[in-house]
């Protein structure tokens, strides 16, 4: 099944944003890039995304706030959040998880780990889709 899932990358460092975008596009994802918290908030309010790749230290609104807002929005209940941050303290990871982040990678991250996480999340979506469709048939 083709990966047409929508991913938004929220990362203020242009090169890192580009790095993630290049690799996810290669995997077949529909990728959108934003570079600050405010644009992320606006885009996430406009339409649902399947996966959010989220930096924490952002200009304007930080990643923790974005995380909370996504989880508080019923329309985004099925959105997966992958945090990618240079903050490496356990308390930051815990905080992100409490706010609803599904995965936390610290910078510098392994590209393979990031791609694996996204692939797994994506496979999960496919499984859910099949289960839902089969139950409809029954």
């Amino acid at each position: 099944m083709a990966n047409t899932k929508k991913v938004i990358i929220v990362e203020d460092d242009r090169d890192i944003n580009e790095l993630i975008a290049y690799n996810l596009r290669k995997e077949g994802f529909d990728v959108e890039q934003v570079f600050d918290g405010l644009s992320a908030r606006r885009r996430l309010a406009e339409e649902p995304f399947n996966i959010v790749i989220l930096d924490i230290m952002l200009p304007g609104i930080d990643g923790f706030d974005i995380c909370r807002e996504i989880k508080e929005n019923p329309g985004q209940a099925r959105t997966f959040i992958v945090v990618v941050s240079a903050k490496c303290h356990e308390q930051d990871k815990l905080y992100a998880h409490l706010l609803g982040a599904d995965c936390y990678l610290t910078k510098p991250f392994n590209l393979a780990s990031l791609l694996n996480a996204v692939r797994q999340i994506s496979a999960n979506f496919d499984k859910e889709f099949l289960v839902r469709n089969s139950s409809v048939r029954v």
Partner: protein
Amino acid sequence: MFNSGLKKKIAELNSALELLKERLNTLENENNRGRAILDSMVEGVIVVDKDTRVLSLNPTAEKIFNTTRESALGRIFLEVFPNNDIAEVIALVLGRGEFISRELNLVWPVQKVFQVNASPISESGAVSGCLLVIHDITEIRRLENMRRDFVANVSHELKTPLTSIKGFVETLLEGALDDKENSVNFLKIINNHADRLNTLINDLLDLSHIESKGVALKKDKFALSILVDEIMPVFRSHAKKKGIEIRNEIPQGLQITADRSKIEQVLVNLINNAIKYNKEKGSVRIYSEPLASGIKVVVEDSGAGIPAKDIPRIFERFYRVDKARSRELGGTGLGLSIVKHIIELHSGSVGVESTEGLGSKFWFTIPK
């Protein structure tokens, strides 16, 4: 008979009085010595009785809580020092008769961090009071926080370029090497970030060298205008690309006494910023103003200026008005901090005046 008996008694009384006087003297001396020790202590000392009435306090305690001995003695602790955290410690000591040591973050009546050591005073087996020794550790905690923030900032600044380097190398290894359109660009990005790491490490080393107390200035008398002319070629190509005109308006004969290589670093950092944050076809002016106490050197640009809210923090390490822009332009966030430290080593001062949209004037002074 009677007389001699009386004389003897009087003599005895006299010697007893002498002894008493001596004892009193000794006691007074001891008391004075104790007082002197208490008075000279950097810690605040307060003694209260079992009803928490203040029996004694030293000058440091007076200073900490902004009170006086006269107004404090004999009053209930909470009346004099309206703080519940310390009162609670006293109550615990009086109740349990045990030594207690606590770090307290006070907001009222003063905003400070204290290490409070409280011991019971016992008389014939019963607790009759409490001795408080209060150590002001606000500055120690502040420095610790600063150091922690600095380490966090440095690691963030190091990790960001590393993330790009590692990520793009992995991308190339995963097959992007064959992507002719992008692979060269990826290699350029890797190269840029390696350069950035190098600049950052150099700036960190400079800063740590300047900050270490023992750094010796090699002061010389030299012509400032010639120094400015000498460093111009460094900026020529960058300025030409943006069409920026740099004018050295320092008077030819002006001489200053300072560490030449350090002042060179100050000027390089300031002129570099003035070009980087300038508009296309803008200008940079370097001029001086005589002061009664020395000389003021100004580097003026015609760039976007600095928002008023950022001005008080602009010389702080890693503080950036526009983080993304600064990174794009290769800034480490340490340049102005280095400038400030060098000038302060020369007992001068630094500052900035800026109007948004019109430009900024960064200045420093060098005393005679």
